[in-house]
């Protein structure tokens, strides 16, 4: 996999984030957003419901994903977002607590991807059914989403998507 400067990678992820927010009306194809400058860039957004940290079985799928995706790929191409189920804007203190909890959990399991806290609750709707992973190919503008539990085929597809250097055609989302 081609290594990119950290800032460019991170800028790419944030561009994807903005793209998703801007084009969130349509799932399964976000061709209306223009990411042609990011051809070859592929990212995964992992939306983690903070409440699920208190529920070990709820995290099984996330652990499977983290076991399957190589650490270097996690660092380069994956961003976690800690989300809240509450309908109101959370207390900033809750965001700090969530970060601290994640720090302990991710260190214990050697999870390498960075996380941010969804303080604006932009991803509530997407993660309300549980841990959700969005794969985004910036070159083709394709987006795909999975909600836990992820089966082995889904994990395999995610890993292939994030690690392959070949053109990757994602099947339309059911």
């Amino acid at each position, binding site marked *: 996999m081609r290594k990119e400067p950290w800032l460019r990678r991170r800028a790419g992820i944030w561009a994807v984030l903005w793209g998703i927010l801007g084009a969130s009306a349509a799932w399964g194809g976000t061709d209306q957003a223009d990411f042609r400058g990011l051809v070859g860039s592929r990212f995964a957004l992992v939306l983690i419901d903070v409440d699920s*940290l*208190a529920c*070990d079985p709820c995290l099984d799928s996330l652990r499977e994903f983290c076991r399957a995706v190589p650490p270097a790929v996690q660092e380069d191409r994956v961003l976690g977002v800690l989300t809240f189920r509450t309908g109101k804007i959370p207390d900033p*203190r*809750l965001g*700090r*607590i969530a970060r*601290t*909890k994640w*720090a*302990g*959990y991710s*260190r*214990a*399991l050697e999870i390498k991807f960075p996380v941010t806290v969804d303080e604006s609750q932009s991803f509530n709707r997407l993660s309300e059914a549980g841990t959700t992973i969005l794969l985004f190919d910036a070159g083709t503008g394709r987006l795909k989403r999975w909600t836990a539990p992820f089966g082995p085929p889904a994990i395999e597809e995610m890993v292939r998507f994030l690690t392959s250097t070949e053109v990757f055609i994602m099947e339309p989302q059911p």
Partner: protein
Amino acid sequence: MHISNSLVFPMLAFAAVSLFAAGPDGPAQIKLEEVLSIGGPDADLLFQWTGVSVDRDDQIFVVDTLDYSLKKFDPRGRFLGKVGRKGQGPGEFEKAVGLSVVGDSVYAWDLSVRAVQVFDRNLIYRKSLPLPGLVDGLGPTPDGALAVGILGPDGFPKIIVIDTEGKIVREISYQGKAERLFGDSVRFVFGPSREIYLGYLFRDLVEKRDLSGARIWAKNPWGTKSVELREIRGFKIPTESCILSVGRDSRGRIYVLGGKKAPHPAREVVIYDADGGLAGGFLLPDPSHSLYFDHRDFLYVAADGGVTLKKYRLIVK
């Protein structure tokens, strides 16, 4: 490591919280004075602690379910070390949910493992004691044995007494078949005169029984009679927690921490004397999943969703 003594939340230092009380001597004012805080939202020390216990040297032991560890702190809250990682091998945890220091041994248990792991006070793993059910609680009996609350394979809770090698000595029978509630869980502490105090997770019920199981008194701290049940795959499962934790201080007072059925869930504490009289109550500043008293009557509870451990002195006026 992060320790804050009334620095981060000065409002909580004397915080707290006096509340109602109604004993024979009239209303008692109870205030919580914070004497130690370990961890915190911006610290990197505790992540979701679930069990705490203090040894005779005032060293504090904590199990943390989010980083699969058993941690040790000195009496001033300074981090001394930790052991554990995710797994089911010796010294490993899947979901550590409780611990108890008895003598020179630290007993720690998982939510989903039918055994108790035994460490020494230097955090060195010694052995595991296999048990006939999932462990729900553990504490010393007045005669030096260990009482273990277990959830049996039949889905009903019971308390067994084991020796230090794990051999079952006897069972404490505390409910008839008609009273048993599938999936229930019981919190317990012993008194000095061979009595046991029980608080039920899903029933609004606190009891004092002798070791033969005979009931001495019973109380409904929240005044509710019914148990909320939800049917899941043919089983009727209780859903609304009533009593999260039971503790006892050296003066024989019983402290009951309320669950969802309490007016202030996970914050409301009701105090009974040894005869079952209402001796007072107070609110915790922050919701906590448990309460624990050490041998000096300091109270330990959670704050900040489990990233903080607070130690309080109770001031009764």
